């Protein structure tokens, strides 16, 4: 029951994160290309392209897919030693890696929440020539992505610990 709920919830947030990040990548491409086209067509370039790109496209692209990456365990791992391990030893290394992931991401996510709360409270913005671009909203992508990754890693670690001996709960 709990496993099924964890599966559904992690799949949903992972998909949502990947879709939002993918959409941001496509929008970023169109935004930058339009800006370049305007520049060479003698029109005014789109205001604050650089600031919007970095805050509202790059930040979600960097952090939101992390949930999906953790769910499918697509991280870069050195397989030299663990590749030859089997059964219990392999499971122990996986549990260690998952707990390390959860701890590190939790630390970053808590820091990200503090920064986001601070930016929200002071209504963080950037002066971009014509207007003030509000950017505090983009601060929340960091804890959303890294925090989601921490939760998924923790859930995976618990499943690995609870799985019957010799079996891995690794999702395909």
């Amino acid at each position: 029951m709990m496993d099924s709920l964890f599966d559904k919830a992690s799949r949903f947030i992972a998909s949502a994160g990947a879709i939002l990040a993918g959409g941001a990548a496509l929008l970023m491409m169109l935004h930058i290309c339009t800006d370049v086209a305007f520049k060479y067509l003698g029109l005014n370039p789109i205001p604050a392209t650089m600031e919007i790109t970095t805050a509202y496209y790059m930040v979600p692209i960097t952090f939101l897919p992390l949930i999906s990456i953790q769910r499918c365990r697509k991280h870069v791992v050195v397989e030299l030693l663990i590749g030859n391990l089997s059964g219990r030893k392999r499971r122990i290394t996986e549990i260690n890696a998952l707990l390390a992931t959860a701890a590190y991401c939790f630390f970053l996510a808590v820091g990200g929440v503090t920064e986001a709360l601070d930016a929200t409270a002071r209504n963080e913005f950037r002066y971009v020539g014509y207007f003030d671009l509000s950017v505090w909203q983009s601060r929340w992508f960091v804890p959303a992505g890294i925090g989601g990754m921490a939760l998924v890693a923790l859930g995976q670690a618990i499943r690995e610990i609870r799985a019957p001996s010799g079996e891995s709960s690794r999702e395909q």
Partner: protein
Amino acid sequence: MTSIAIGAGSCVVLLILLLIGVPVAIALGLISVVGIIILRGVTPAYDIAATLPYDFADHWSLAAVPMFLLMGSVVHNSGLTASLFAAARAWCSQLPGGLAIATNFASAGFAAASGSSMATAAAMGRIAIPEMLRAGYDPRLATAVVAASGTLGSLIPPSILIVIYGWMTEQPIGKLLIAGIVPGVLTAIVYALMISGRVILQPEIAPSVPAKANWRERWLLLLDVWPLPVLIMGVIGSIYSGLATVTEAAALGALLSMAIAGFKHKLTLRTVLNSAKDAVEGTAVIFLIAIGAILFTRFLAMAGLPAFLAIQVEQWAVEPWILLIGFVVTYIVLGAFLDPMGIMLITVPVFTPIFLILGFDLIWIGILVIKLLEIGLITPPVGLNAFVIKGVVGDEIGLEDIFKGLAWFVAAELLILLLLILFPQIILFVPNSLM
């Protein structure tokens, strides 16, 4: 315990964490956070962890990475490179080892468009290896040529590794991308010469294949691969001419790849969505490692390790060429165990102060680093491209045979590396004259 000892000890712990299967990004970040807590306390570690991830992502020049990845994914997913091998085969089949040479040049083209060594090895492996095996080629040559030529994507623009190196060392990324062209093309030519030479000496490893295409068919096949040069020249041309910054050129490249796929009736909504998903996931994996690596760099700087090493080098008055040999050996050893992006992100911040003291050109060093990372992709025990090929061929050919075949390509790579070290102008002439 001195801070230097803590810094040096952390490098050993990092290696242990990597070997017991902790993801590279997590091992780097975790060791850094713990190290900073030991050196300075919890508050500085927390402050860095709170601000660094956002500050890292909030960076204009790094926006080139997801855009180049998107371009590569569109090219790969829409099958724009499908006719590449057929064209290369028609033009090279008369040469000794013609199919292997065709695979070499087709892989170079594919790698340049996709920007991914492993995607190239996987895609070209499925197309070219069965054809070479059917023609009676030695399985070692057939598999090794795909694994080795796939690595060319790291040098021939657009290269993600070069973009990240430029950002880390604050070198002009456009100039670095242009600097990779000659060494990349030179590598493909040396590979072709090596294959031909081997086949002339041992004709049994690559029986000659009768030419199927006449001249008209050859030109028609060549015309069919127009998207590739258009795409690459579009990106390089816009950077070189100053029409666009690297990030703008990358976005234009991504849009151009979709336009070409649409023109060839190969663009579907599924292709676009899958490509966007692949691109952002690839970006997030790379950037999470980069965030860990920056934390590690900050920690090592607090420990004083890079400055300590630089001072030692200055005091010992070590000959630059001895250091260069040490640098090459370090990368080759690390390349045998770790992935290229991880190696670069860990080592470049440590080595850069030393190179600056010695007065080395960081553009030249950057291309040497990428070349060494390429070699790491094909050396045992963790030559990633060899593993990709093993995945493609299954149980038919052993990993040992693939690595044996790759020994020839590693020898060719070492020869090219020697040329690039002895004659820096091979790397620097084009970027210095053009930009």
